[in-house]
């Protein structure tokens, strides 16, 4: 646990408290509350529209929650930005943007650079190392539009590696990639885990979840279950997350969508 020592404190890498998120008054996450232990590979699974991407975006401060909060190593995100890295969905950027592969990976170093400072030689070295790790070193001068889907995904991973963070959030990194890329990504996830990093991955393929990850977080608007794969990834929980329609809950959510979602902070 090399990184636990760097942390100094025993605070868990990710803590989420009573998180509720609504979009245009429509709840998309409902009182989600959990803690992740250090050094785990966690998959977030759940049906479409369950709020998987939303959850990691809220933790990273990309979306404002209605109530609740997330802590990174026991502290608010603002103080901890350098310790998190993000691999967004591939479709979220314009791949015709005039930058090279190395440029994109270097962006991962920006978090460690002061305003107005340019990336230096050491940053380039780190970026090249990261490219090496994902098997893309030969492509460092290519323009990103010339890459295949799997290669684009690997570039995004290299960028996250270059961030040299303690917690990695990845939004469907396995979506639409070729077999060799899938193997590469998996290899990398394991390396990260053995280096004591914490990795949280939004995952859509239920077949591979138990092979690839050691923790699972099951989500469907609310938190269905979280814990080690063997005990948590059960038929019963899957039923709850995917199948079993919680009739009343859906109706209530529907109602609060129509009414204005008012939440008073007063307490007795």
């Amino acid at each position: 646990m090399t990184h636990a020592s760097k942390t100094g404190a025993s605070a868990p890498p990710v803590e989420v408290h009573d998180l509720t998120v609504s979009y245009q008054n429509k709840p998309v996450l409902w009182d989600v509350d959990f803690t992740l232990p250090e050094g785990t590979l966690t998959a977030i699974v759940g049906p479409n529209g369950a709020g998987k991407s939303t959850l990691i975006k809220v933790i990273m401060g990309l979306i404002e929650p209605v109530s609740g909060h997330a802590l990174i190593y026991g502290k608010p995100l603002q103080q901890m930005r350098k310790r998190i890295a993000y691999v967004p969905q591939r479709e979220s950027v314009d791949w015709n943007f005039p930058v090279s592969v190395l440029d994109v990976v270097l962006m991962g170093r920006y978090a460690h650079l002061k305003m107005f400072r340019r990336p230096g030689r050491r940053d380039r070295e780190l970026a090249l190392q990261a490219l090496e790790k994902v098997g893309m070193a030969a492509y460092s001068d290519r323009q990103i539009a010339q890459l295949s889907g799997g290669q684009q995904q690997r570039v995004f991973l290299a960028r996250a590696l270059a961030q040299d963070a303690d917690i990695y959030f990845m939004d469907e990194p396995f979506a639409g990639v070729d077999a060799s890329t899938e193997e590469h990504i998996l290899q990398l996830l394991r390396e990260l885990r053995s280096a004591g990093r914490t990795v949280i991955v939004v995952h859509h393929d239920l077949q591979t979840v138990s092979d690839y990850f050691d923790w699972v977080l099951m989500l469907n608007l609310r938190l269905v279950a979280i814990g080690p794969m063997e005990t948590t990834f059960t038929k019963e929980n899957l039923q709850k997350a995917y199948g079993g329609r919680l009739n009343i809950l859906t109706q209530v959510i529907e109602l609060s969508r129509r009414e204005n979602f008012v939440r008073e902070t007063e307490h007795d």
Partner: protein
Amino acid sequence: MTEIWADFFLLQDPNLRWVLAGTVMLGLSAGALGCFAVLRERALVGDAVAHSVLPGVCLAFIITGDKDPLALLIGSVVFGWISLLVMDFVIRNSKISTDTSIGMVLSVFFGLGVVMLTWIQNSGNANQSGLDAFLFGNAASMLPEDVLLFGFVSVMVLVTIILLFKELKLVSFDPGFATVIGYPMKRMEVLMATLLVVTITAGLQAVGVVLMASMLIIPAAAARYWTDSLVVMLVIAAGVGAISAISGTFVSYTAPSMPTGPWMVVSAAALFTLSFFFAPARGEFQKWRRRRRQQEKVSGENILKTLYKLEERDGLSARSRTRREILKKRRMEPASLKKGLRRLVSQGLVQHLKGQPSGYLLTEGGREEAKRIVRIHRLWELYLTEKLQLPGDHVHDPAESMEHVITPELEQQLMRILNNPEEDPHNKRIPKASPRSGGAAL
């Protein structure tokens, strides 16, 4: 002043009749067609086409040496078409994005038009004066033959929209589906493009190239706030266009130095602003009122609940409470408590005792209502702990907001699912409804 009003609305002036007919026809057709442009997210394509017809106007003038309306119409339709094809070609054949392509075509075509216009002006052709009316429009100078031609074009556009309404609707909403069911998509695209170019051309004399796009966009955007039906939206947009046309013409009739086009745009913008704020259902004012009513309901229900809980704490003794006692039990703004109590008194849910002891007391109906709220709160807490396995300290907050939302039907379902429970997770009693009244509605 009244004379001018009478002159205007009795249409005494024959010239005014022509001008008015021209602008109103334009307002109607641009408003209706604009709905499709806005709904297909092509609002600014119209802006580019409007700017791009300028070289066509100039070229027609250079060739004929005259301002023959038919020649100008043909010239501008041709160039409007060319601009659309260029935009499309650039997007299809390069990585240039739609908005860049629009901006590029708009500025380059317009630049070409300006070059040609200055060339004509320097060539000394005596007929050229008035060509620049196409830039900002000059409705007052429209001649009967202009109005006949452009009015005819506008009528054709309207008739086409009415006849092909169903097809246009489907093509705008779901082109993929339209292709699959065998619509001739190529021809539909060509038709829609032609309608757009023709409408813009017909409007140039009245509003000019710079402001033409707004006559497509603003009425359609205003109409969207009033309805969810495309037919109604089309009618309202056409109406907004026509009203803007009348008021613009009126202003420049009463103050001849005033340009018609900009006043049409400003009138349309005023109607848009009105719609934005005051349209029923979607307007800002309505949204604000609904929000406030909801807040009033929530704060009223919270006061009732607090009064009930005070009774519950003191062993269900029906004694009046002062505002201070209520505030001690539940933190809220003293001013909103005062207002809320006044509302509850007028609704007959709370009694205000003025003598000794003074204070507020739940009426029979108020107590039923308070029980209903407390019941829902505790049922929901129970549901969250039992059915969703939420920890006990996490269920109060969601219940606090849900108690104001859950309907009687859902309440009964909850009762059934939870087997008519007696106590909530914090071991507080769940109050039952009195048999005779099912709880008064607030």
